[in-house]
């Protein structure tokens, strides 16, 4: 049987795939094709599985607000249901040729004659293939007989849908636990854990599930070390199934109405690679390399949507439209083209955007490494800064910028545009928490660093970059950056840079190299130039350690020191058979210098307390670095003397060391600002929580009672404002920001996807509806109106709040509170305090006499 053949096969009917198919269908209609030349293949039974799986009624946002939609299918912010309806009718109205239940398992062949194989065994032919399968992957199945029975399901939309059933939940992660707990309210539930404990779950879920399992009043049971062996339909006429379980006590047959397996998803990367598409490296979040027209390294095979690295719906839809035009040979300007125009508006050039892009890429070595798609993306997400000499030139440029700003302010959400500054203006100051990275496109920038009263000045010019230290280590800026004459600087946010570094090894190596050079300069040789250090920097070694790994061990011989590039290291000594923690050392500091200063035996064991990166400098390089600089050697010696005294002091106070150990175990090695409650003072009045709720829209971002305690030190569940916030990593609209003063906060762009909640290892982010308004303090005090200050746990969201949907909430360290952190200010007994790492030692040591 000859197989069906199409010009374009689009795989995955998410926003990207639908939009592409709709464009192809329109073109079919325009050319009057007798039968469709396109096909949209969707593995699920409905379009847009990712969106189908959002929570019911979720408000879907149309971020980024400044990007226009270009698609034959409608999309605007609204409820999930509304959007899905619109899409459904959009597919019909455009006459899209879609096939559901068509999971693609293999793509082979080449441009002009691809063969697309489906899980049903069927094959299709296509000249071009567009891959838009998103990132969600397909759920891992039970892998046993009966895994596809109707009531064996791999997700749970609404636990309230089921009542008085017997349900088996398979899995031990957060999803399984949350489902089991929710289902147990109305059903009898068994949770099956393949291991003998719930080690992968968050602390909150862990406590909840253990309590529920042992609570005799709850109908929730647990099988540990158990897996499903098979599932068979029950006897005729019964709705039940029988699951055979492999338990440590032998096989058990369990009758149930439903099985819900939450075993995670299989990431799509393997499938994508099997199509011949290459990834730049093994990093988890690496994206395939694409041309400006979204074409992969396999000619004729295109990749769009979140799979291509664009995490938002509107971007995905625009790409769907564009890619079909590109395939048709119509090389239109992409929908984000105007954004580039605004970014370049203030530059002193009379050139077209494409021209400028090309020119920048040819002039700047780092940009040359990017394909033009990635470079355009970089520019759109960056700030373009341009300086002019104070006077008429600046005034004119400013006028031009203002007129564009006035025009853009008409938009619901104005896009970024060139930032015009004066020559000599400060770009950032030392001590500021910055997370962005700067590339000089033209002109000069001066860096000033003060150390011991001496100012070291470096001037950078075209092609050089700066700001890499804060980017890579999360530490505050060390130097002052000053705009030089007519400079053009591209300031790129951390998230963009991390994405770039993870998918482009050359860029990563370049940035890391300059980091090492500047760190060596800063630590050992302030007077040396980059050129002087070029050679040495190639000879030092960079190491990565996971939390808990040993860097060096007490008693061994050492011939090197480590500069900690990021993270925190715990130094401990073995005293009478016990490991006593003597110091915690943070990024920017050195460990093990004594080995190069007369004592080759390591006196401490150094262990990474969080993920750590170090630069290891051996004796030869060290001597070369400090060669003739007497001053520098004296300074290094002084620092070592200080450190050994501190270490010795801690070593004789094992109590303090054990508290410090506790802090490190709890991840405070990467915190910058953490709430610590002294249990010897706390009366449990929860005024701190109330203060938090009252100053943050009625929702407390801190749970005082939760969190670990040791020797009177209690670390409540509340954001620690990590050096390198894990939460920022995958936020599609880039809504998580860090203030210059260090506070990590979430702005109004949040789309409620919950990625950050998953990514924060400290469990401090909650997805919440806006709290309903309540009566003021006096009305409560005098007339007892409302339930008083604090979060009202029982409140149900107003209609408006429900429509807006759950948003990520977390502590913002009261960035915008004039009086500072409300929790600390409101504690009647002085038990609550926010501290930074430099105060840990005061916290654990009894300094008072």
């Amino acid at each position: 049987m000859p197989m069906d053949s199409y010009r374009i096969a689009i795989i995955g009917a998410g926003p990207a795939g639908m939009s592409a198919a709709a464009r192809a269908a329109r073109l079919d209609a325009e050319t009057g094709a007798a039968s469709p030349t396109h096909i949209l293949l969707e593995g699920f039974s409905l379009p847009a599985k990712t969106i189908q799986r959002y929570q019911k009624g979720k408000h879907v946002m149309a971020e980024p607000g400044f990007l226009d939609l270009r698609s034959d299918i409608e999309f605007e912010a609204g409820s999930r249901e509304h959007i899905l309806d619109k899409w459904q009718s959009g597919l019909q109205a455009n006459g899209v040729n879609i096939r559901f239940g068509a999971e693609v398992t293999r793509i082979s062949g080449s441009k002009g004659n691809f063969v697309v194989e489906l899980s049903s065994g069927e094959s299709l032919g296509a000249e071009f293939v567009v891959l838009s399968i998103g990132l969600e992957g397909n759920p891992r199945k039970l892998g046993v007989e009966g895994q596809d029975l109707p009531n064996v399901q791999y997700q749970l939309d609404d636990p309230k849908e089921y009542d008085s059933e017997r349900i088996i939940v398979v899995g031990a992660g957060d999803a399984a636990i949350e489902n089991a707990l929710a289902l147990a309210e109305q059903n009898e539930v068994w949770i099956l854990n393949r291991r003998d404990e719930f080690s992968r779950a968050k602390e909150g879920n862990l406590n909840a599930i253990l309590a529920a399992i042992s609570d005799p009043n709850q109908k929730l049971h647990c099988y540990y070390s158990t897996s499903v062996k098979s599932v068979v339909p029950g006897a005729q006429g019964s709705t039940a199934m029988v699951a055979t379980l492999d338990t440590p006590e032998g096989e058990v047959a369990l009758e149930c109405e439903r099985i819900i397996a939450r075993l995670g998803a299989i990431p799509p990367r393997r499938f994508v690679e099997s199509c011949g598409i290459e990834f730049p490296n093994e990093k988890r979040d690496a994206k395939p390399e694409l041309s400006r027209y979204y074409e992969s390294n396999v000619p004729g095979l295109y990749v769009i949507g979140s799979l291509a690295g664009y995490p938002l719906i509107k971007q995905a839809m625009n790409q769907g439209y564009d890619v079909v035009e590109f395939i048709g040979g119509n090389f239109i300007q992409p929908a984000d083209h105007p954004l580039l125009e605004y970014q370049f508006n203030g530059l002193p050039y009379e050139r077209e955007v494409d021209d400028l892009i090309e020119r920048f890429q040819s002039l700047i070595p780092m940009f040359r490494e990017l394909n033009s798609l990635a470079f355009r993306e970089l520019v759109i997400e960056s700030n373009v800064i341009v300086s002019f000499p104070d006077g008429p030139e600046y005034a004119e440029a400013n006028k031009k910028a203002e007129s564009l700003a006035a025009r853009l302010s008409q938009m619901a959400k104005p896009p970024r545009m060139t930032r015009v500054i004066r020559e000599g203006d400060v770009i950032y100051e030392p001590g500021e928490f910055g997370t962005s990275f700067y590339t000089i496109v033209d002109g000069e920038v001066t860096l000033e660093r003060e150390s011991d009263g001496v100012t070291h000045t470096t001037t950078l010019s075209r092609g050089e970059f700066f700001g890499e230290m804060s980017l890579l280590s999360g530490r505050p800026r060390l130097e002052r950056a000053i705009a030089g004459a007519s400079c053009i600087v591209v300031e790129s946010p951390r998230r963009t840079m991390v994405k770039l570094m993870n998918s482009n090894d050359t860029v990563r190596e370049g940035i890391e190299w300059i980091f090492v050079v500047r760190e060596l300069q800063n630590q050992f040789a302030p007077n040396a130039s980059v050129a002087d250090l070029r050679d040495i920097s190639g000879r030092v070694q960079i190491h990565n350690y996971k939390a808990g790994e040993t860097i060096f061990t007490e008693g061994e011989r050492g011939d090197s020191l480590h500069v900690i590039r990021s993270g925190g290291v715990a130094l401990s000594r073995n005293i009478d058979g016990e490991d006593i923690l003597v110091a915690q050392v943070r990024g920017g500091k050195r460990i093990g210098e004594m080995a190069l200063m007369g004592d080759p035996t390591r006196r401490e064991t150094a262990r990474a307390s969080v993920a750590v990166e170090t630069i290891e400098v051996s004796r030869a390089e060290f001597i070369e670095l400090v060669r003739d600089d007497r001053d520098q050697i004296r300074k290094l010696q002084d620092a070592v003397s200080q450190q050994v005294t501190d270490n010795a002091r801690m070593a004789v106070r094992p109590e303090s060391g054990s508290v410090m150990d506790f802090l490190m175990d709890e991840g405070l090695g990467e915190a910058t600002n953490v709430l610590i409650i002294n249990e010897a003072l706390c009366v449990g009045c929860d005024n701190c929580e109330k203060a938090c709720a009252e100053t943050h829209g009625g929702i407390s971002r801190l749970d005082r009672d939760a969190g670990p305690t040791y020797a009177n030190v209690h670390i409540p569940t509340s954001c620690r404002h990590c050096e390198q916030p894990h939460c920022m990593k995958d936020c599609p609209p880039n809504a998580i920001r860090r203030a210059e003063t260090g506070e990590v906060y979430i702005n109004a762009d949040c789309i409620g996807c919950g990625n950050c909640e998953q990514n924060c290892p400290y469990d401090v982010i909650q997805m919440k509806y806006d709290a309903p308004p309540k009566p003021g303090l006096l009305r409560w005090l005098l007339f007892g109106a409302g339930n008083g200050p604090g979060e009202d746990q029982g409140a149900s969201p107003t209609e408006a709040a429900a429509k807006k949907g759950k948003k990520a909430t977390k502590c913002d360290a009261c960035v915008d509170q004039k009086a500072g952190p409300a929790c600390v200010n409101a504690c009647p007994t002085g038990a609550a305090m926010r501290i930074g790492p430099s105060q840990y030692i005061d916290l654990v040591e009894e300094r008072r006499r």
Partner: protein
Amino acid sequence: MIHTGILRYAKARFLWWAVGLTAFSVLLYSTQGGLQPANGGTWQGYVLGTIGALLIVWLSMLGIRKRSYSSNAGSVPGWTSAHVYLGTALLAVATLHSAGQLGWNVHSLSYVLMFVVIISGFYGIYTYVNYPQAITENRSGSSRAALFAELFELDRRGRELAAKGPDDINIVVRSAIERTAIGGGVYAQLLGTDRSLFVRPSGSGDSAAGKPVSNRDQQPVIDLIAGRLPRTSKVAETELLEELLEIFCRRQAVLRRIARDIRLRGRIRFWLLLHIPLTVALIFALIVHIVTTFIYW
């Protein structure tokens, strides 16, 4: 720790304020005499009275400041520290203002109310200083939720074991678990009374057989199981009883901790139930006191 409690707040600055205020009041008081005997009616008495009334108003404002969460007006620990010291000084101010002339009237009512508020404050500060540490030690690192989780787990194991044992033991164990009383009303919480019950097996010869009797501190059940142990001849049953005994001893320890936790936390909070309403009463009495003073002048 780098935290400072309210008594030491800002190097106990407000202690010195309070000392100063007291000294000033004594000085002022001692200048009375001559034509008029010392009392609230002299000009000195008026000054002291005014200071006292203002102090009371300000002391009461803590309830509002404590809940004005965005306020810039000093921190709550600072206010509380000042509250405690100046509240104590008020005792001197008001006593000197009244010059000891107390009787059965509204004027003295204000004094008495104030006195009780202050005494309750002393008790409060005592609990604030001593109990948090006691609570932490009592829980020894774990949380109340964890204690309850442990209790539930012990209950579950106890039930499971007892189900395998003889019926009468099963009844004892199940009833003891089911009728374990935790917490209770304000009094039970403060005094730590234990209304736990269990059912004594019938046939044990005593009059209470088959009826629920007190299981205070879980001791009677422990005694009963321990009493049965040497009188059992079956090995399996001995083992079971031994295990049950262990579980109940552990339960007793956990329950004691929970009860102590509830008691201490209750005490730290319940004094405010005296302090606040009496403050409200005091303010009304004070208004009456001032108004009548001026009317009958």
